[in-house]
């Protein structure tokens, strides 16, 4: 059961909806009727392949002024002439159409341009194809020839109105009536597809768009973003179907970086792009179902990439549009070049900054007027001065602050004197804002411009204080003496202890006794050397204090445990209740002081005695007391004990050992730290030593 045309009896009816009336167009004969015949048999079989598309081609033949010369319509079975989608009609009008038009009218078609195409669904066709496409072209003709029809004007230009008089084939009439507006001029043809493909309306809009795209590009910070933003902007601003940006890689290849819009970019696009890059000019390309325009991005005379604009349908890059795209392409090229430059500068900058900042030495850069241009972190920290307070100021003022004005003058002079090559090597002692004195080793090199003129200096500063001190220490009498005295003592003490321990063979009790005596004398000597050294240094005022905030409670506990065994051997008990007590003093020396007092307490207390240590907070100080119930100190010695070599004669003093210097040293250290020491004592009842240490300002 099928519907067939009432005129030609073919089963090729198309249903049209014109003004809501059911109309049928026969694709074979072209006649329109509003009824069909139902046939119960296969009357005709059209020799076409199953699934073929039927294309109706209508030609509206216009002259260059836009007047319609002729309307033609023909059905072209897909297989024989041009399959749908492979119409290369911009340069090669289908031969069949050309021939037919020429035969019938004598007109030679020069160019064809797709005017309109639409789809009509037909689900009645028994041959499987469900879509019928209509293509309407406008054709430009070369040489007008007279029409056969005598009613036509002899120079055969026909305005649209006159065409209506002809018996147009129904399909053509359909087109004329419903598609073409009732005006003559071509640009007024307002079918959606055509309108869509007009990229730009007028020059004003064009300039607006260019401005808009440039502004958008200026706002971009990262060069990665430029490609994305540029493609988006072009797509939004125009009706281009696909935009791709290709960039030249280091290997000189043109590689696609980004494609936006429809995915039209393919091998063909790549070839066109490469050609464009080679020639450095715009290149147009057409393939079966798209047209494309490749524009080179040129910067500094070199092609850095290509922009490819593509359209789904051929023939859409007219001159105005090409110009517009060329301008936009140039904007993008500039944008990319700029952002690349900025990035490479930034990278170099980052590298330099990283080198400066991570240097383990201070770096100072000045210009030839002495103005400080740059400092690195290490220098900031070494001097204890902020970068903000250094950069921009004159180095003379910094030098003045540090007390190294002479050195600064030397550098300034050197820069003026145009010294050849060479560097300056110096050592200077500087006084920091904190009051600390340090030694700097300085290496100064000069910065020159391309003409060799000195434009500034780079000064590298190294803190060589420790090395200096060590060197000085080497020359120091006390240090040398100490070292020279201690060394042989070390050997004597060492070998004696090893003998005692049996390292050279079993020791008889007799031998052990002698060894013990020798060893203890050595210990006395060692102790004496230590005390002498300390005393000498105190006399020479060479005590180095390292003041920090620390918990003296901990130090007391440590001292107690160091002397535990000594106390134990006399069965002495040491009482101390630990609580964190923060002081502002020299930790190691405080330990020395406490151990000294504790050692004395142990020495001068009989067996089974008690020693107690207490700490008390007193305004800005911490008061520490070491109390024993030993032999006590007579009244007249209360202050004398702190003098050099004073040892009170008492019942225990014969066995007590010691040099008589301990308290002298302790007192010197305590006073140097800003404290006081004194004692309370009762003969044979016991002694309490008191001393103060500055309290820490930190909360405990």
């Amino acid at each position, binding site marked *: 059961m099928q519907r067939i045309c009432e005129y030609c009896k073919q089963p090729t009816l198309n249903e049209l909806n014109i003004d809501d009336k059911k109309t049928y167009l026969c694709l074979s004969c072209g006649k329109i009727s509003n009824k069909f015949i139902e046939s119960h048999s296969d009357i005709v079989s059209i020799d076409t392949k199953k699934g073929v598309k039927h294309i109706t081609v209508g030609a509206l033949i216009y002259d260059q002024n836009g007047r319609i010369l002729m309307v033609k319509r023909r059905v072209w079975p897909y297989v024989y002439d041009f399959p749908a989608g492979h119409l290369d009609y911009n340069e090669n009008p289908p031969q069949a159409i050309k021939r037919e038009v020429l035969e019938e009218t004598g007109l030679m078609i020069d160019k064809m341009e797709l005017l309109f195409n639409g789809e009509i669904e037909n689900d009645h066709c028994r041959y499987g194809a469900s879509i019928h496409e209509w293509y309407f072209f406008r054709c430009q003709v070369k040489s007008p020839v007279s029409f056969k029809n005598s009613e036509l004007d002899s120079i055969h230009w026909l305005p649209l109105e006159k065409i209506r008089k002809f018996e147009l084939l129904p399909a053509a009439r359909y087109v004329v009536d419903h598609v073409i507006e009732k005006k003559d001029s071509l640009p007024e043809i307002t079918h959606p597809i055509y309108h869509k493909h007009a990229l730009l309306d007028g020059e004003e809009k064009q300039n607006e768009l260019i401005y808009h795209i440039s502004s958008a590009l200026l706002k971009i910070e990262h060069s990665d973003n430029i490609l994305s933003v540029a493609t988006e902007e072009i797509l939004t601003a125009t009706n281009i179907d696909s935009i791709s940006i290709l960039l030249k890689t280091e290997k000189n290849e043109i590689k696609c970086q980004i494609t936006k819009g429809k995915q039209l970019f393919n091998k063909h696009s790549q070839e066109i792009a490469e050609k464009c890059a080679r020639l450095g000019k715009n290149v147009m390309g057409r393939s079966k179902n798209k047209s494309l325009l490749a524009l080179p991005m040129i910067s500094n005379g070199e092609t850095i990439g290509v922009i490819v604009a593509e359209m789904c349908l051929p023939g859409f890059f007219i001159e105005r549009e090409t110009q517009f795209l060329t301008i936009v392409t140039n904007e993008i090229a500039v944008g990319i070049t700029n952002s690349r430059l900025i990035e490479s500068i930034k990278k170099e900058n980052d590298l330099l900054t990283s080198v400066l900042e991570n240097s383990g030495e201070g770096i100072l850069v000045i210009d030839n007027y002495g103005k400080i241009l740059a400092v690195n972190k290490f220098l900031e920290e070494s001097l204890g001065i902020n970068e903000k307070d250094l950069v921009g100021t004159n180095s003379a003022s910094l030098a003045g602050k540090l007390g190294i004005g002479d050195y600064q003058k030397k550098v300034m002079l050197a820069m003026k004197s145009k010294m050849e090559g060479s560097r300056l090597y110096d050592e200077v002692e500087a006084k920091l804002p904190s009051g600390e004195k340090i030694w700097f080793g300085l290496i100064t090199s000069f910065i020159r411009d391309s003409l060799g003129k000195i434009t500034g200096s780079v000064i590298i500063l190294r803190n060589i204080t*420790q*090395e200096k001190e*060590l060197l000085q*220490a*080497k020359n120091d009498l006390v*240090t040398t003496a*100490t*070292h020279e005295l*201690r*060394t*042989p*003592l*070390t*050997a004597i*003490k*060492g*070998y004696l*202890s*090893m003998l005692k*321990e049996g*390292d050279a063979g079993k020791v008889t009790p007799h031998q052990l006794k002698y060894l013990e005596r020798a060893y203890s004398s050595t210990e006395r000597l*060692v102790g004496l*050397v*230590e005390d002498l*050294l*300390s005393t000498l*240094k*105190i006399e020479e005022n*060479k*005590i*180095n204090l*390292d003041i920090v905030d620390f918990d003296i409670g901990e130090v007391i506990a440590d001292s107690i445990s160091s002397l535990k065994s000594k106390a134990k051997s006399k069965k002495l008990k040491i009482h101390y209740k630990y609580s964190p007590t923060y002081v502002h003093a020299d930790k*190691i*020396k405080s*330990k*020395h002081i406490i151990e000294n007092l504790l050692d004395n307490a142990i020495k001068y207390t009989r067996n089974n005695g008690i020693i107690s240590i207490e700490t008390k907070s007193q305004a800005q100080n911490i008061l520490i007391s070491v109390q024993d119930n030993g032999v006590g100190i007579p009244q007249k010695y209360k202050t004398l004990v702190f003098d050099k070599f004073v040892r009170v004669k008492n019942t225990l003093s014969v066995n007590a050992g010691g040099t008589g210097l301990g308290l002298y*040293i302790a007192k010197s*250290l305590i006073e140097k730290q800003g404290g006081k020491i004194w004692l309370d004592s009762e003969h044979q009842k016991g002694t309490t030593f008191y001393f103060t240490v500055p309290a820490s300002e930190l909360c405990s």
Partner: protein
Amino acid sequence: MTNKKSILLIEDDLALVEMYRDKLRKEGYRVLTVTDGRMAMQRIRQGADLILLDILMPNLNGFEILKRTKKEEELKNIPVIVLTNIGSDSVDNDKKLAFSLGAADYMIKSLNTPSDVVQKIKSILG
């Protein structure tokens, strides 16, 4: 074969070198010695489980050696005991300096017997 720990002794006084070497060997350590400061870094790079470092030696700044050792990736984990006869707890800051440069401990030779040194080594090496 027992895994003997090796101790590198950097010390210029020969009497002391022999003394410490005897003691350490008795305690089961392998002992390597350097008496010239200029050879110190080279020897250290040959590897050791622990270093005993003197400070005041001719041609050698012991603190400098300590600094350099602690800077090098492959050497910085070797424990270093500063074993010296300069400095004093009562008047100097050498102990603090040694620790701040990364020393594991600081001992004054004349105040410690060789056994004391061995005890310290044992407490560090385990």
